[in-house]
């Protein structure tokens, strides 16, 4: 007997094999290297995007918050991983799934890549709604591709998104706890003509 969660993965994954080009696109999007780099580039782009001193410092502080949120999200996901230890879908329903991805060895809940993507997207959204929405879409597509590939359950994806957003909010409070170190760091980088 399978849960609704598992039924969704099995149904989505069963769509693979019909359109080779779409499967290949999902393989590329789901990769460990493309979308995480895109989120990092989003943060890098924000750093240099400010058009006046006030906007620049706001963008750069947000970038630092975003980068910190990515790191903290990894730690929180790891704590969930070792606490919940949910097996991957292909471990429990391997006979019903066609894996489009290598078999990951870490637990399933919550989805680490989605947490990272949503943390970066939330950082971008707080200063530029349009750019933030693009990053949210990229993070959601990243999550969908992993679901389609058969390596996460839907609740892993939702859990990852919630963790990513929550960690960014937490990081903004952490920044206030650590001020003025954060703004002083940006001032130091400005001393190197890079901020």
């Amino acid at each position, binding site marked *: 007997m399978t849960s609704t969660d598992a039924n969704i993965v099995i149904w989505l994954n069963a769509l693979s094999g019909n359109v080779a080009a779409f*499967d*290949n*696109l999902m*393989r*590329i999007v*789901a*990769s*460990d*290297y*493309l979308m*995480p*780099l895109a989120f*990092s*580039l989003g943060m*890098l*782009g*924000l*750093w*240099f*995007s*400010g*058009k*006046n*001193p006030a906007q*620049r410092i706001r963008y750069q502080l947000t970038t630092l918050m975003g980068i910190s949120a990515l790191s903290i999200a*990894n730690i929180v996901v790891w704590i969930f991983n070792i606490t919940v230890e949910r097996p991957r879908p292909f471990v429990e329903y391997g006979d019903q799934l066609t*894996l*489009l*991805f*290598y*078999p*990951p*060895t870490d637990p399933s809940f919550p989805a680490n890549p989605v947490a990272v993507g949503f943390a970066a997207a939330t950082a971008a959204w707080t200063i530029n709604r349009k750019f933030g929405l693009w990053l949210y879409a990229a993070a959601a597509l990243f999550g969908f591709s992993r679901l389609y590939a058969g390596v996460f359950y839907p609740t892993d994806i939702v859990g990852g998104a919630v963790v990513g957003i929550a960690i960014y909010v937490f990081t903004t409070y952490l920044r*206030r*706890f*650590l*001020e*003025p*170190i954060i*703004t*002083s760091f940006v*001032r*130091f980088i*400005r*001393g*190197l*003509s*890079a*901020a």
Partner: protein
Amino acid sequence: MNTDPGVVRDLFAGHYFLFAFLTSLGTIQIAVSNAGTRGLWLTPNATLTRWLGIALIITAIAIFLAQPLWVDGPWAADSVEADSLTRDWGKASWDELAGARNVNDIHGGLDGVKQTGWFSLAAVTAFAVSAIAGTLSIRILNPVQPKSGDDQDPDMADGLAGLANRSYLSTQPESWRNFHAEFGEFWRKGIREAESWSLIKSIWGRSPK
């Protein structure tokens, strides 16, 4: 075939660095062309710089994804389902290309920490290349005069703001001088204005001036 993960990682890290460097350079070019930071432009023209940035990103993605077609590595047959230790060493076919680059970190790929390290190095290198190219562009190809009043306004004279009209080499001495001159007061002001529950304020804020 037993493929040593260390050998795979050495090969893969080089490819990833090139990928991260070119995309970082492209991203910086798009951002600074929009922000008007001429000191970091690869070309003297904003529109050209923006399109060059887009081209760099597309080229980087294409090279990274297509490299297994002409570079030997652990991306041959059954690259997705099989673990890397049992992959054949060779070039990938077109059919295998989409999954060929998704190398598991335990089989020679890069985990999150290593990706962060390589990306950071690539981003710093991309900034350095932009600064050098921007210096050449401003000094040789298209010299510009600072806007009047820029030198008197400290916010417009250093950092990225200073690069709006000057090269990195011209801006850097002033950026560092301003940092030295202002940092003490900047830090004290930061302590005064920090919220009462700031950890840093609670440590430094109570000490006598």
